[in-house]
């Protein structure tokens, strides 16, 4: 038996350590250990709830926007405060543009390097790659000159000897299986993605006033003034600039990214057998279409045991099924609950650190272990896409069918929907979600324009805080899955605040019943060809798009190489 420790996992936000026991070329046991920011409640205690979002968006460097949005939703929920339609649409566009940005960056810049051999792409033939591209779509930038220019850029870059982000890649690893032309086409899109993702970020910047850290939110709405007669407000001119950016994004997402993901999935079809892990899937509805949060453009809910027929929808911002279903356990986390209590609901959440080294059978992570209905649940684009599919969401069905059809064509065999419960399935689902979000972004833009055209220019309802205690929760289907904030307000001041973040759900350690979390469960039976180069472990971990933000300093006191892989 060999023990592998990868510390830290790179190409993610924050610090994550993965330990695996490998026997007979397969993972038999796994541990996920992370440093997660767990102190936000201490910063927020006794503050004005209207300010909380300013602080929560500093929790993470990738997910700034999502923590801001979820925070205002939690406080609005506590006050039963309605949000004007324009404000919902503007927030929804920020949410959708941020999601599209995040998914493009994840596939190309963070995950693709586990599957695409960038150095081998230099052996690809631009004409062959262009021909291949043409069989998949009529994407205009799949032309021979475009691809040749990219190959030349790559050659210069590799010749410079300063590989930067590519230096830690597993080039030439036996598990890298794409033909050179496919590598070259994907590398071309890798470079194009760097340009295209800027369009998504610009949408967030125009609406949010600044990125990173949007400035336009308020409890009760947004601070974007709408006045068709003033140049300093959100004008039609600005809205049409956004429309142009949305269209640019769409060309890339629908014609390049969806096909790349389908092709990578088809050519690595063996990876549909690995990485299912926890198949209880939790997602929440998002993009509210009314002022109260009872209708949504994107559905969400709970699927137990991977059985889509048992899907139970979460239907409103007041949904008791979601509110009462969430708990967090600390048996294997470096915390203790007063009196040794078992898993606690976030409203009762406690944060008392109790650190004492890494114990395989004891405490080994700073991340708590969340449960839904006392069971582990996987969150993220796969959970979201399966939930929307189960709810009968037409755009999700259409984009998913399209991706599976392209993959089946490349593979030369029909790929079943059940293949989604896997490492490659998580990556495929993220591309589908990206396409769905892009379409939703177009819809939200139209809804906003139509609503302004009706003469409605309201963007804000003033919050009023009652004497005594009120409690609220807000949720958001963020790029990495379900994010929820929980707030207890006493006499207009924050008394308790907890954030249950997506990577807590997925990266959490074993729970009170010693049940492994989604990362840990998904690694079981993963093949490992070479314990010193555990590319296969990275593939499965990266498929979740880990974001274990901040507090990195706690384990980062000494200088050391960027990646340590220890095989014993």
């Amino acid at each position, binding site marked *: 038996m060999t023990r592998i420790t990868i510390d830290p996992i790179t190409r993610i936000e924050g610090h994550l350590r993965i330990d695996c026991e490998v026997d007979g070329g397969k993972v038999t046991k796994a541990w996920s250990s992370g440093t997660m*920011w767990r102190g936000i409640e201490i*910063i927020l205690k006794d503050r004005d709830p209207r300010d909380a979002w300013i602080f929560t968006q500093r929790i993470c460097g990738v997910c700034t926007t999502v923590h801001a949005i979820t925070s205002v939703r939690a406080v609005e929920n506590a006050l039963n405060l309605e949000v004007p339609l324009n404000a919902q649409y503007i927030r929804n566009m920020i949410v959708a543009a941020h999601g599209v940005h995040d998914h493009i960056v994840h596939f190309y810049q963070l995950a693709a390097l586990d599957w695409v051999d960038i150095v081998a792409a230099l052996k690809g033939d631009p004409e062959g790659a262009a021909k291949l591209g043409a069989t998949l779509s009529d994407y205009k930038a799949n032309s021979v000159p475009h691809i040749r220019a990219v190959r030349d850029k790559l050659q210069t*870059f590799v010749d410079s000897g300063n590989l*930067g982000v590519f230096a830690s890649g597993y080039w030439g690893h036996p598990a890298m299986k794409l033909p050179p032309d496919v590598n070259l086409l994907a590398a071309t899109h890798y*470079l194009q993605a*760097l*340009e295209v993702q800027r369009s998504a970020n610009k949408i967030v910047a125009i609406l949010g006033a600044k990125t990173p850290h949007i400035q336009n939110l308020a409890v009760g709405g947004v601070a974007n003034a709408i006045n068709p007669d003033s140049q300093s407000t959100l004008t039609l001119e600005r809205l049409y600039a956004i429309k142009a950016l949305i269209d640019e994004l769409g060309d890339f997402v629908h014609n390049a990214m969806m096909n790349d993901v389908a092709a990578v999935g088809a050519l690595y079809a063996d990876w549909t057998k690995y990485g299912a892990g926890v198949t209880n899937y939790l997602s929440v509805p998002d993009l509210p279409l009314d002022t109260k949060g009872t209708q949504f453009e994107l559905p969400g809910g709970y699927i137990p045991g991977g059985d889509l027929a048992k899907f139970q929808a979460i239907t409103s911002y007041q949904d008791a099924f979601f509110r009462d279903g969430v708990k967090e356990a600390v048996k294997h986390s470096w915390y203790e609950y007063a009196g040794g209590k078992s898993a606690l609901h976030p409203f009762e959440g406690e944060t008392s650190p109790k650190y004492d080294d890494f114990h395989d059978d004891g405490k080994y992570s700073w991340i708590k272990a969340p449960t839904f209905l006392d069971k582990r649940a996987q969150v993220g684009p796969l959970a979201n896409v399966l939930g929307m599919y189960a709810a009968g969401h037409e755009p999700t069905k259409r984009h998913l069918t399209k991706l599976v059809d392209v993959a089946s064509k490349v593979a030369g065999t029909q790929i079943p929907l059940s293949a989604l419960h896997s490492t490659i399935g998580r990556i495929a689902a993220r591309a589908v979600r990206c396409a769905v979000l892009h379409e939703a972004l177009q819809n939200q833009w139209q809804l906003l324009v139509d609503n302004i055209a009706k003469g409605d220019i309201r963007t804000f309802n003033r919050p009023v805080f009652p004497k005594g205690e009120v409690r609220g929760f807000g949720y958001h289907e963020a790029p990495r899955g379900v994010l929820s904030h929980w707030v207890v307000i006493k006499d207009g001041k924050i008394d308790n605040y907890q954030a249950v973040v997506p990577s807590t759900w997925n990266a959490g350690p074993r729970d009170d019943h010693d049940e492994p979390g989604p990362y840990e469960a998904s690694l079981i039976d993963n093949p490992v060809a070479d314990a010193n180069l555990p590319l296969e472990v990275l593939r499965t971990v990266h498929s979740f798009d880990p974001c274990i933000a901040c507090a990195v300093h706690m384990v*980062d*006191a000494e200088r050391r190489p960027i990646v340590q892989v220890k095989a014993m």
Partner: protein
Amino acid sequence: MSILVLGLGNILLSDEGVGVRVVEALAASHDLPDDVEVLDGGTSGMDLLDMVADRDCLIVADAVNADGPAGRLIRLENDDIRMLFETRFSPHQLGLSDLLANLRLIGRAPRRIVVVGVVPQELGLGLDLSPAAAVGRDAAVGMIVDELARLGAGPRPRPH
């Protein structure tokens, strides 16, 4: 000439956020020429691509792990910065190094990069800087002002 002064760090973790505090102090105390832009980048990485791309000069203010007393200033330029990518010098280097490598790949990396680092004292929870880091912050503002002056883009102190 297009210059970005980028403050990095997590303001929730006291001195960890010193880079952000440096650019806040710079913007509050000086009038900057039109070709100098100041950005609080928080702990972002790839999100900053659009702002960092195509700059003539990028000046990064950040907390750095280095020998010496808290508040000490570190200045690194161009080739020295490569070392940052090979060691985990600051918690944000991964995001920033990935970003810069990607920008080099598409030929949009800043032509010149200067890092002005402050050695932190306190990395615990809190919004305020330690006294040592506050001294470091003020010194870092001075160093950046000199840097900008050398580039022919010297800021003017704002009257109090």
